[in-house]
């Protein structure tokens, strides 16, 4: 693909609000995870909770905004307010025309928490849900994109990609195609996934939650820690400023199993190779790889094989799930944001919580941050249903490429 400029981005997670908080955490090795419960869910594990969601005065930003009030849209609103992202997007709308700016977001559960809570308040006689449940604006998968489109006053094409934990990596590919074809001039892409009962209890039922903090690439890793997060990026055909470049995107399916990765990482290999081919780059051109690295025994083992097949064992890589937890449908966009921070700050982050390296894993996993200029980084995102995506991002300095 022709490189596409990323002119602005923002991120909100358990680490805090905005890019500075995240860059500081990557430098200092501070985790955003804590051992705590969520709502009425008693959890034997660690989670990444975004602070300030409940306290946010709900904005009447546009007509009908009141119905969108739910944890997921509040989380989206926090990320729109971070790093001046909303203002950047509104300026793009003014420049290109609101109908020339698309909104393509990833989420796995959107605002389903709202319906989960409503099911506790069903009418004892009729079984009906309470009248204050606004399904289209909160529960439906599209609600996240509809809220962001309304809040930013955008009028271009919009949809939600929901492919589990690869969702918000794939939206970068969606936007790149539509910009290249002239359907839009710019796009707000990103991911929003907030904590809810479905994922907390669902992953527990699958026995994929670690009682300990998640330890990607550790010999004793025992599963994931879940986090909530939102991240946005503004992609533009004719930017006034550039934060980074989208150089390529690769997508594939495992075609193997609904909830387990292909044991040799065949789908992951296909996605990484497709991303490199899309960027017109060789494996040796990549300086750092942000792994999917959830911390479950099987996921990390399969990804390690895949990384070695594509890049060999010299490429510095790490999982940032130890900072944010697994942010599910938001993970692709969150880790794209962390990868862009790595490019901007010349800092390949270390993977947190690694005590005892797994001798069977061969990738060059960073236990300490690696400082030095980075030109090209890649980021992996894999999800249930065997959905794989890999993004290749370039530093702003590479603008002349």
């Amino acid at each position, binding site marked *: 693909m022709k490189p596409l400029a990323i002119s602005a981005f923002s991120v909100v997670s358990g680490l805090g609000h905005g890019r500075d908080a995240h860059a500081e955490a990557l430098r200092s090795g501070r985790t955003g995870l804590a051992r705590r419960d969520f709502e009425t*869910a008693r959890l034997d594990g660690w989670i990444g909770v975004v602070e300030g969601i409940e306290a946010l005065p709900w904005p009447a930003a546009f007509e009908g905004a009141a119905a969108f009030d739910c944890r997921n849209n509040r989380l989206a609103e926090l990320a729109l307010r971070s790093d001046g992202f909303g203002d950047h997007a509104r300026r793009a709308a003014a420049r290109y025309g609101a109908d020339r700016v698309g909104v393509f977001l990833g989420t796995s559960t959107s605002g*389903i928490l709202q319906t989960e809570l409503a099911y506790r308040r069903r009418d004892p006689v009729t079984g009906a849900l309470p009248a204050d449940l606004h399904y289209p604006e909160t529960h439906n*998968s599209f609600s996240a994109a509809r809220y962001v489109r309304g809040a930013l006053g955008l009028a271009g094409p919009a*949809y939600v990609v929901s492919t589990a934990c690869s969702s918000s990596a794939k939206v970068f590919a969606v936007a790149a195609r539509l910009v290249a*074809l002239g359907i839009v001039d710019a796009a707000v892409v990103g991911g929003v996934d907030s904590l809810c009962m*479905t994922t907390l209890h669902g992953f527990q039922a699958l026995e994929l939650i670690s009682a300990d903090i998640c330890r990607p690439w550790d010999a004793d890793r025992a599963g994931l820690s879940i986090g909530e997060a939102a991240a946005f990026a503004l992609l533009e055909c004719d930017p006034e400023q550039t934060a980074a470049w989208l150089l390529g995107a690769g997508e594939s399916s495992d*075609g193997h199993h609904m909830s387990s990765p292909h044991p040799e990482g065949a789908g992951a290999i296909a996605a990484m190779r497709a991303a490199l081919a899309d960027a017109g780059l060789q494996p040796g051109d990549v300086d750092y790889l942000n792994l999917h690295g959830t911390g479950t025994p099987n996921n990390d083992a399969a990804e390690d094989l895949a990384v070695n097949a594509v890049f060999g064992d010299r490429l510095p890589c790490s999982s940032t799930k130890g900072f944010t937890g697994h942010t599910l449908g938001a993970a692709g966009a969150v880790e794209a944001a962390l990868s862009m921070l790595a490019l901007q700050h010349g800092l390949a982050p270390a993977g947190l919580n690694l005590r005892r390296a797994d001798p069977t894993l061969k990738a060059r996993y960073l236990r300490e941050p690696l400082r030095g200029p980075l030109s090209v980084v890649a980021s992996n995102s894999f999800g249930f249903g065997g*959905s794989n995506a890999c993004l290749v991002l370039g530093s702003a300095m590479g603008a002349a490429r």
Partner: protein
Amino acid sequence: MSTLSVAIRGVGLLGPGLADWAGGAALLREPARWRRTATVVPAPARLQATERRRAGVVVKASIVVAEQAVAAAGLDAASLPTVFTSSTGEPANCHALCEALASSDRLVSPTRFTNSVHNAPAGYWHISAHSMQPSTSLCAYDASFSAGLLEAAAQCLSSGRPVLLVACDVPYPEPLHRVRPVADVFGLALLVAPIDGTASSRLATLALRVGTDAPATACDDAGFEELRRTIPAARALPLLQALAAQCSRRIVLEGLPGMALQLDLG
């Protein structure tokens, strides 16, 4: 405004009184012969027994229509990238999870949780087709079909390869049905391909333009119009009727406000 021009090489259909595309196309041409009966979703042959037991209605209906479109185009299912679009996902599964999560023990079935992902139909399809091709699963509420068609056309033109588009919606059980009524199961699949080769390999060409504020084309027949308005995936009916009639026609498909899709069929 850019135009995306693609060919349609195969169609799949399943809906109320519409068992498949072969029979359904005739009824779409002659609505007077159509009788509305509840959609019957057959078990797709390509799913193995275990998967057939685990899969919900949206998975089965999606795979049934996908099989029809792929067979009609004479293509290998394993070679096709896919776009799945649905407004509602798997409603019965969602209801069962919400009920379990509202109970005191909150015991969630691992299979139900796995099947709750919006890309469950895509996952089962690619497993059964042994396909490692890319797949995207979308939602745009009532505009989900037009979003899927835009995405499939964009992928097809970007890669220069055929793409399988599958749209399917399934009604929620109560109490969710009351907050999101969907009339019945409706699914369709389109094999979207680059315009190349001979005209005989395609049913029609589509020139697609995004962003008209013209009103959506309605179905002339009151019964089909009722389906179109009450099932998001059935918003495709005017396009399906034009494909069945093999005629050149301009159609406007419902999109987001001001973002309808204008289709010129050739």
